[in-house]
């Protein structure tokens, strides 16, 4: 891209002096005070949301006004834009925390009982307290269905991503276009497709297997696309070095391309799993609903965690709703675990190693050195004799 050795780097140009900070704090305090005055003394307003919105608008106005004492119009606009972007980011962050935290907090009531994890809903009527019934059947269903989906998606997805990267031509371009367009395939359409193909077409019954297939149809394009992006980041020079050493395409892919991209591929699969595990509608279409524990994915209805959540919270009974929140909390925790795993194991660009990996490579390299020296000595010894 650039002709110099050092890549171009962006410079940080933040210049917040003390006056700016004072203006920021002052206008924030004034905005809260004005909003409070309006709300409690002047106008018959109510509601937290209204308070926040009015305080925010007043804050923007005051902040711009205060800045305009010392700065020109361009700078005022710059400061306002910055305040706007910061507040949007803040709102999004708060939204995320509330959405993730809400089911966890509401689900504590159900999670506190051990039977929630060891029983199914077979013996729990609508009016039974939380000490009866649980979501074991949904947990088992989710794990089995996602396992089936992974058995299909991991080999197909990774090989297809390698295919997209290793062969150039009209055909691989076509596959890439179709896969790209399919990443936003509505999950319910994936469910309809599997219902039409496997249940109506091949005569399978509604089962965990069909649900796993539906989830895999939905996950496949996501995993292919993410892996494709990661594989594309493997430096071409590494690949060419491998060819130059005399390795063929298979060896290059197996020993150079895939290990280099391992971290990113792990992330792609884990994030795809997180998406697949939370899908409700394909399971709703292809696996049906049951309150019983069904460990056999090949026959009979099998419920999953999101479907169980959905059916429990739409019930009018408080205890059922609590169970629904509990199921949502368990689902959310599963997704969080997958996500954290994805970030810890992967998320690094190709070739960028963690400290442990670097240490391991160093040790392997040292061992190789020893081996080479031993071999040279051995060979020299051989020629001497």
């Amino acid at each position, binding site marked *: 891209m650039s002709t110099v050795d050092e890549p171009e780097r962006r410079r940080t140009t933040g210049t917040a002096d003390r006056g700016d900070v004072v203006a920021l704090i002052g206008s924030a305090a004034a905005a809260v005070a004005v909003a409070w005055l309006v709300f409690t003394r002047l106008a018959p307003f109510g509601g937290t949301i209204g308070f926040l919105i009015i305080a925010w608008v007043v804050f923007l106005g005051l902040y711009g006004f205060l800045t305009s004492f010392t700065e020109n119009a361009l700078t005022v606009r710059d400061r306002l834009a910055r305040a706007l972007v910061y507040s949007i980011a803040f709102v999004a962050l708060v939204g995320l925390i509330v*959405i993730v935290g809400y089911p966890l907090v509401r689900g504590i009531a159900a999670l506190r009982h051990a039977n929630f994890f060891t029983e199914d809903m077979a013996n729990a009527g609508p009016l039974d307290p939380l000490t009866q019934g649980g979501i074991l059947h949904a947990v088992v269903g989710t794990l089995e269905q996602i396992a089936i989906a992974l058995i299909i998606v991991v080999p197909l997805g990774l090989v297809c991503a390698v295919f997209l990267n290793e062969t150039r031509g009209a055909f691989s371009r076509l596959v890439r276009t179709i896969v790209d367009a399919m990443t936003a395939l509505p999950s319910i*359409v994936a469910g*309809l497709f599997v219902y039409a193909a496997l249940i109506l077409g091949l005569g399978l019954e509604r089962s965990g297997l069909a649900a796993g297939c539906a989830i895999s149809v939905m996950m*496949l394009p996501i995993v292919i696309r993410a892996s494709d992006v990661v594989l594309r980041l493997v430096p071409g020079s590494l690949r060419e070095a491998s060819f130059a050493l*005399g390795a063929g395409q298979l060896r290059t892919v197996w020993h150079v391309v895939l290990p280099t991209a391992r971290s990113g591929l792990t992330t792609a699969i884990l994030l795809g799993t997180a998406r697949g595990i939370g899908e409700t509608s394909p399971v*709703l279409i292809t696996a049906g609903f049951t309150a019983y524990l069904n460990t056999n994915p090949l026959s009979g209805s099998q419920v999953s965690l*999101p479907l169980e959540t959905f059916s429990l919270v739409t019930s009018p009974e408080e205890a059922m*709703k609590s169970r629904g929140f509990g199921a949502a909390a368990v689902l959310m925790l599963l997704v969080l675990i997958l996500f954290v795993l994805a970030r810890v194991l992967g998320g690094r660009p190709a070739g960028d190693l963690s400290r442990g990996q670097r240490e391991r490579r160093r040790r392997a390299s040292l061992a190789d050195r020893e081996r080479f020296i031993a071999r040279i000595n051995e060979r020299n010894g051989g020629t001497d004799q």
Partner: protein
Amino acid sequence: MTSLRTAMSSSRAEEARRRVAPPGGADRVFRAMLRIVGVLVLAIMATVGLFLVRNGSDALGMAGWSFLTTQAWQPDSGNFGIAAVLAGTVLIALVALCVAFPLAAGVALFISEYAPPGARRALVSLVDLMAAVPSVVYGLFGAVFLQWNLLDVPRWISTRFGWIPLFTVDGYDPDDPLSSQTVFASSTFFAGLIVGMMVMPIACSVMREAFSQAPPGEREGAYALGATKWGMIRSVVLPFARGGMIGGTMLGLGRALGETIAVYMIIAPVFVIQPHILQSGANSVSAMIAQQWGAASPFGLSALMAAGLALFALTLVVNFGASAIIARSRSGQESEA
């Protein structure tokens, strides 16, 4: 590293260094296998539409063009169509875009331009996490918490701007202090709000990528000409990333059109075209399929397949458009160094 070791150990016996994998042979098998998998994936993806057409053809053949113009959904008496649910789907998706676009653009700008460089990776992770939250959790949050705590917002809009047909709410009189607020719940507005929060991270990650690809030289040039940060963003980053912004938004639109369970949990289903977005009662194609699935007759299933086909075609068009725009906006793949 591993390759080296294997190469060494396999050639230990010979004296001369030999080519590890002669051309042809294993590589030919390997390439054939890659191609087979490619064909397989393509076949799976291509048959999605095929199976929907085959199973939906009964209903489509019976309804004919009225499938697109009828609002009711009574497949067993022959009176059914997707006019109402399709309009509902588009309205929900449009509301979602109005929510998602400013949020996504703001967060993407924050991450790529304003956030301290050390925090960028963590922020990107948080946005990715938002994309990984299951839709049933979003639906739960919207149906049980958000819409009952935010009823003031549609009430205020309806009171002030009720003269605009879009914001009219039948059965609500602003002058009547005792009027019920429940006419504002379960509406297109809240469904769109939640779906907008769901698709925000998808649009955001495309936009962020586009923003961060704005050339550093031109940024510096803008600064050198005396631009403020915002001036630089407006004159360099935003024009450069316009394709990415449009593409990301369309990608979000594709997701918004197909969202099922979150919409299903929030709305109160109706089968008429409901142009009043603040009023209780809405519907979407995917939510209708989920509602009607359990109690459908074989012909009803066929009708639902036909509805699914319409949704599939709609999202496919939007997605193709989005990926074409994004691909065009990406000026070359620098990664192939």
